[in-house]
């Protein structure tokens, strides 16, 4: 695929993981879309930041814990997960409460690098303004 046809896709995650089906469906769409070799980013803001908490255990509610699937994103070259600082803070969370997600950089001897980047609201606004396609969930 030539560079000219690569578009910037942003998937916006604004919902908590188990109360509705949005979060799981968004992750499914991201994994499907990863096959198309686009420039993909994910944003987590509002209740979407709850999708990334470490230690989710759904044994007691009878639904699948899909949070481990976020660890697979790096293998699909999806390694830009922007988490809004203001949304974390408003919900009593910090970066240390989130899963550690990494990707392997083949241009840097497969060094493991973090996929999650904490950004301010202003930084996220700029990222949103830079996209060709935004899919919001």
């Amino acid at each position: 695929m030539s560079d000219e046809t690569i578009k910037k896709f942003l998937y916006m995650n604004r919902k908590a993981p188990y109360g509705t089906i949005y979060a799981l469906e968004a992750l499914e769409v991201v994994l499907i879309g990863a096959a198309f070799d686009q420039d993909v980013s994910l944003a987590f803001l509002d209740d979407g930041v709850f999708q990334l908490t470490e230690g989710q255990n759904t044994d007691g509610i009878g639904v699948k814990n899909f949070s481990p699937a976020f660890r697979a994103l790096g293998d699909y070259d999806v390694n830009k997960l922007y988490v809004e600082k203001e949304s974390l803070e408003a919900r009593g969370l910090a970066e240390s409460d989130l899963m550690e997600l990494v990707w392997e950089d083949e241009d840097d001897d497969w060094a493991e690098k973090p996929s999650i980047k904490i950004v301010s609201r202003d930084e996220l606004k700029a990222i949103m303004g830079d996209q060709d396609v935004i899919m919001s969930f």
Partner: protein
Amino acid sequence: MSILHTVNKSPFQKADLSSCLAHANAGDAVLLIEDGVYGAIAGTDAAKDIATADPSIYVLGGDLAARGIAGDKVADGITVIEYDGFVDLVTEHKAVNSWL
């Protein structure tokens, strides 16, 4: 080119409009549709947020009429448009962001 944001939830029930306004850039457009049109009513907290927001604000007339919200209830600074205007906004912006 900028972004067209659509909001379809009532601001009296959900925080989507407030989050959208906080994240939209100057030069963007925000279009209120479906139950989002309740955010266009003058004299509310939502209208105050809209008055100080950076982007241009539009509301879909058909959705207002369906809900019995007359044009003179719409806050100053909000432009009422119909479906053809919605289409124009889509074509005038680089991408659409639906705040579901």
